[in-house]
């Protein structure tokens, strides 16, 4: 090891010429003077170690109602009209031409010309004391109706998957902003020192359309980005020790690497190096903690049955169970993505009838089980579950290229969709907002995705208008210049 360090120093000295010396000496002295002059009014804290401070628990602006979040994103966007937003009137218009006022000046991802209206495919009924409307697609969720707040009047600005996902998770439809999870960990840090504060689990065979940016850290230091764990096999690749290397050797290696990184940091002061150092340390601790927390084999059989999980499977159900285990270990933000909800009606799997029923069959039970499981462990009080997608689906049947699709399908819809939340400071058994008779527009208490973000931050103890990060000359916030807390859904 020492040999390696010496070699590095040697190489470094080779690179130093007289010119370098004079340059750095001159600049260095000047900077020293300037530094001491400005030291007292400088806001920069890169010096004190972003990374070292980054992951410890931090204090919110006001007392939080939700200490942890499980965000379940159904990528592709399930149809609210088949699951939650019951529109008997739409049934009457089934097969009729769409009224002109729904089409004038509107843009759709695929619908062209005049599409036909498509009646609800599910059988609806009211459930729980609260009388929440749900369809027979989701029989398990019906059993926990009274734990949930539904927002039926969600709306967004984007009708394509990737930008809509970005808008939902980062507050902007363009790349480069930190995600909700990153903001949460930036604001609140992580309580469990052996696990990342922001963990991402994906299922459904594909990543979300907007890629890693939906759980990225944007301009925040990269320690705050979501750490994706695999659900089958090794949860995090390359975190286990290779054969022949024991934990002690691994420890020494990481210490040596960090020492070198520290020296480079002292030279160039790039805060990303600190991130790297802390990530190495975290990875080392994760060698022990991650396999343990991700191992479901010690869960009792009835819990596995409740979620519908078989050990070793990388399914959405497994991710729900893991999400519970992670929040049980005080992980701050668990982001679940499940791909395959884009029911256009183009294929047998991609429609709002059988295809959507099948997706629900795989996800309904584990989501309901997650709510039950958190509740009986006394965790639901402080854990906020958010369920939803990047947008909704049209009350019209999709007619891509003017042709009726072979299966029942709906196009992307930004004017109205349903999301729900449970636990962590939201009302139990409550429905917020309403859509019109055909489920096209929100007509009461519309909630924009920025309003949702403001509300989530509020529940976590932050005023979204004052929770900012300075970048390129101005303060940025998750909700940018928009967003209003939806007070009515707060318990």
């Amino acid at each position, binding site marked *: 090891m020492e040999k390696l360090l010496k070699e590095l120093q040697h190489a470094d000295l080779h690179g130093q010429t007289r010119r370098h010396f004079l340059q750095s000496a001159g600049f260095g002295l000047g900077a020293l003077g300037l530094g001491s002059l400005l030291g007292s*009014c400088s806001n920069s804290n890169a010096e004190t170690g972003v990374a070292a401070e980054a992951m410890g*628990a*931090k*204090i*919110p*602006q*006001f*007392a*939080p109602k939700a200490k942890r979040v499980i965000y379940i994103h159904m990528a592709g966007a399930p149809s609210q009209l088949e699951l939650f937003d019951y529109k008997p009137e739409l049934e009457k218009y089934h097969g009729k031409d769409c009224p002109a006022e729904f089409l004038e000046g509107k843009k759709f991802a695929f619908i062209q010309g005049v599409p036909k209206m498509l009646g609800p495919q599910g059988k609806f009924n009211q459930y729980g004391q609260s009388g929440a409307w749900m369809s*027979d*697609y989701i*029989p*398990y969720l*019906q*059993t926990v109706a009274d734990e949930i707040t539904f927002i039926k009047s969600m709306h967004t600005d984007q009708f394509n998957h990737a930008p809509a996902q970005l808008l939902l998770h980062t507050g902007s439809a363009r790349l480069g902003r930190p995600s909700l999870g990153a903001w949460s960990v930036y604001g609140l840090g992580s*309580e*469990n*020192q*052996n696990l990342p504060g922001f963990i991402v689990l994906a299922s459904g065979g594909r990543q979300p359309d907007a890629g890693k940016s939906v759980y990225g850290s944007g301009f925040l230091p990269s320690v705050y980005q979501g750490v994706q764990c695999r659900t089958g096999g090794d949860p995090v690749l390359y975190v286990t020790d290779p054969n022949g290397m024991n934990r002690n050797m691994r420890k020494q290696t990481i210490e040596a690497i960090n020492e070198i990184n520290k020296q480079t940091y002292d030279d160039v002061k790039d805060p990303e190096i600190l991130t790297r150092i802390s990530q190495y340390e975290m990875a080392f601790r994760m060698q022990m903690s991650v396999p343990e927390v991700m191992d479901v084999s010690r869960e009792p059989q*009835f*819990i596995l*049955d*409740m979620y519908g999980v078989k050990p070793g499977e990388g399914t959405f159900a497994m991710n729900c169970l893991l999400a519970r285990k992670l929040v049980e*270990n*005080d992980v701050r933000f668990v982001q679940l993505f499940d791909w395959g909800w884009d029911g256009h009606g183009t294929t*047998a*799997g991609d*429609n709002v*009838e*059988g*295809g959507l*029923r*099948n997706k*629900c*069959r795989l996800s*309904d*039970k584990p989501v*309901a*089980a997650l709510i*039950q*499981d958190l*509740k*009986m*462990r*006394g965790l639901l*009080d402080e854990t906020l579950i958010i369920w939803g997608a990047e947008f909704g689906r049209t009350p019209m049947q999709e007619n891509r290229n003017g042709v*009726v699709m*072979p*299966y*029942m399908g709906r196009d992307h819809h930004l004017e109205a969709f349903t999301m729900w939340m449970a636990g962590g400071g939201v009302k139990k058994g409550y429905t917020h907002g309403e859509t019109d008779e055909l489920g096209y527009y929100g007509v*009461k208490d519309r909630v924009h995705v920025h309003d949702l973000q403001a509300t989530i931050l509020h529940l976590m*103890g932050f005023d979204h208008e004052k929770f900012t990060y300075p970048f390129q000359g101005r303060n940025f916030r998750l909700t940018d210049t928009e967003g209003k807390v939806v*007070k*009515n859904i*707060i*318990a």
Partner: protein
Amino acid sequence: MLILLQASDWTYFIGRFHPVLVHLPIGFLLIAGLLEIGRRTGKISVNDSTITFILFWSAVGATLACIAGYLLSLGGGYDEELLSDHKWKGIGVAVFAWIAWLFKSGKISVGSAVYLPALGLSTLLTFTAGHDGGSLTHGDGYLTQYTPEPFRSIAGIPPRTEEKTEMKPITDINQAVVYKDIVQPILEMRCVQCHNANKQKGGLRMDNLAMLLKGGEDGPVFVSGKALESAMIKRCLLPETDDDHMPPKGKPQLSESQITLLSWWIEQGVSADKKVSDLKISEQVKPALASLTSGSEGKNAQQVDSPVLSLQVPVPNEKSVAAIKKAGLIVMPISHDKNLLEVSAVNASGFGDGQINLFSPLSEQIIWLKLGGTKVTDAATKEIGKLKNLNKLHLEYTAVTDEGLTSLKDLQYLEYINLVGTKITDAGLKNLASSKSLKNIYIWKSAVTENGVAEVQKLHPDLHIVNGFNEAKVAEFLKAGDTNTKEEKPRIQ
């Protein structure tokens, strides 16, 4: 210098010194004036150069105070009119101080013909500028607010009225007169301070209906039946940073439901004597009206919060906090604006009874305590019972038993207790349930039986006792999906 004219940290930094600097010329000028009087009346003997020297520093001080004052004003948030008066008077002080010095020092020799008026004016302006400054900082009328009678009447100051900051709860909302019981109290709280008989900003009075209907300089303040076209509502809805926004930036603002209520009253025709039940009540107005009955108007957000959150406790002792941290626990204020603490042993599963005394010095501050999965036993609960403001307590998967719980039931703020995976029994639950504050008890995987829960539930119907699933209950849960178990073959149209 140019840089300083733009608002930056530096301008505010220097600006904040205005109140410090401003007292120098005040003191100096008064001394110069007094010495001059003393000299001229022959009471004392002062050298001219002494007064010249004092005048020079008066002028310098006044100039610096002017500069700092200008920088301070860039921050905004002051009454424009008053600020302008204050500014020019302040500049006057500096100018006349320089003139007085110039003539006194003999640099220009015209003698006392100019010198004395200049000194006099400068001193006089010091008083008035100072008074304006005080009004800017503390608010108009601060000086005379508590003038006692009979001086009050002599000086023509109107009798003191109680400042209204909160609305009294309305007992029977349907019988409440909309204008008298809802609208006027809101106006009193937020508007009348600047729009009354004595002070009529924009020529508008809002202290009674007749005057309100008359409007101000810019005409009527509302259009009956059209809230959104009414200036009064429009101004409230403007962004707070807008110059036309009302109430002005920095003053207490109208809440959303207050605006809703005012709009509703305008929409419904600005009636003077109609009751709530006489008007059409929309869905939007309902919650706003409801908030009036509970007296929670304006503080809705806190209404459902636990009372423990409004406790004021001393700043926690740093050494005690450090000692707990050293034991591997997380200790943090629950939020930036509070001294209340949250303590978690998530990273310290070895924490045990021996260390429980670490909490004693913070018995007032600790309200949320997470000791789940640690080695604490009944011996520790005695100490935990002394954390008198404890609100949430996690003891899941510990060796705590019924006996230990007896030390906890007198905690008057305890609302949440997690006893999952402990050995507590029906008797322990029953005993614990007598606590008046408890709302949620979690007893899954303990020795508590279903019958035990049912019995306690009967005695305390509001208590939320949460048990969990066992094999039988999971089997029941799984039945919910019986209709949905086989894979669907989507049909082709």
